[in-house]
């Protein structure tokens, strides 16, 4: 039996419909491709009434299972018109070539505040390279504070960069440096700082969600929001 709605999806996630996860089984819906239909030709998004209490985790689980339309419907249900949910909703619309939704949501994405944070969260989800560098440059233009840049550097795959970033962070925001060292860099003798943990959690949550969601369309969305795309 294929899961057909949010609650079926939830059952599947908790293993109550084992056949949905049978080895070798085909995902419920295929991943989107460039060949996806335009909105006029597409059926409406699945009915997920009652999903207002869903979470971003539900969205990510739906996407992992290949239920991209269901994930979009969940995002539409839980979107409050600002923040990460709106950004992901717009990125998912872009992914689905739903230009009407993208156009509607883009002004909200542009209003996301602080604007630098989203760029850095996406940058933190990317491998080093021109795309990541461009996002960091844009974040700096938008007023990213030194500690945020130091944090990003402290998460670099390069050992030397990571160390230099951690040193920068120590001098910019020692409490956050301790928290990042303990949480992200495996220093077991360092204690997280209670004052810094909220900032850490907000930034790291966004970074981790974007990484799981997939960065491609979030990057493309930001390029459009910043007027750097078609």
């Amino acid at each position, binding site marked *: 039996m294929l899961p057909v709605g949010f609650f079926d999806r939830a059952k599947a996630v908790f293993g109550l419909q084992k056949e949905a996860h049978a080895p070798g089984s085909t995902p419920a819906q295929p991943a989107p491709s460039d060949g996806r239909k335009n909105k006029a030709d597409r059926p409406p998004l699945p009915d997920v009434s009652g999903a207002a209490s869903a979470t971003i985790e539900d969205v990510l689980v739906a996407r992992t299972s290949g239920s991209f339309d269901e994930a979009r419907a969940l995002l539409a249900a839980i979107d409050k018109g600002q923040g990460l949910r709106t950004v992901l909703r717009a990125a998912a619309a872009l992914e689905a070539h739903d230009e009407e939704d993208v156009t509607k949501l883009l002004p909200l994405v542009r209003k996301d505040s602080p604007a630098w944070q989203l760029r850095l969260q996406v940058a933190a989800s990317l491998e080093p390279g021109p795309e990541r560098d461009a996002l960091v440059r844009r974040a700096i233009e938008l007023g990213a504070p030194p500690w945020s840049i130091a944090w990003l550097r402290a998460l670099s795959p390069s050992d030397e960069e990571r*160390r*230099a970033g*951690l*040193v*920068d962070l*120590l*001098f910019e925001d*020692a409490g956050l*440096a*301790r928290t990042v*060292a303990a949480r992200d860099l495996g*220093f077991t*003798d*360092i*204690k997280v700082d209670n004052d810094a943990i909220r900032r850490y959690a907000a930034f790291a949550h966004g970074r981790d969600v974007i990484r799981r969601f997939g960065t491609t369309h979030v990057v493309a969305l930001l390029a459009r929001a910043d007027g750097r795309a078609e």
Partner: protein
Amino acid sequence: MSRPLLSLYSLDRQKLQDLSSKLRELLARDDRAAISALLGLGEELARRLAAERWAVGLFLRPDEDPLAAPIFASLRRVVKRAALEHLWTSESPALEGRLRAYDVLREEQDIAETIDRLLDSARLPWFLQRPGGTGGWLDDEQRETLSKRMEALGPALPDEINAFVEALSAMDGDALVHDRL
């Protein structure tokens, strides 16, 4: 355990900045030999530093960590020698409480705000912040303005505050207060 006493220091900001920049550069390079030399570490402490994954890891440990505590103490000694001159220590453990809460001072908003800045540890470099400790600094102009404003209130202030004001007025330049250096 007795309550710590607030001390007043003359602060050479440029020298503090120079020392801070030097330490930052050495930590970024992970040059442990140079860090040991800068802090004047003995053989045993230098060996501990050399055994760390990165030198910066040791400086991120808690102040009371048995490995890090003597290194923090060395760092603070070097800072004091380079950038601070001890001028005065209060005889009264009640001074901090008086400065933070005495109603005559609190009723004067500009005085209260400047005192709060002087006692705000978050404005100090990380290596001068100590858990549960009090510290902060004012530049020369703020210090002078504060001491004059408080002098004018002298008759209405308790002795421990007036002694502090006298020390603050007698010094030149930027001021730093701390109770655990």
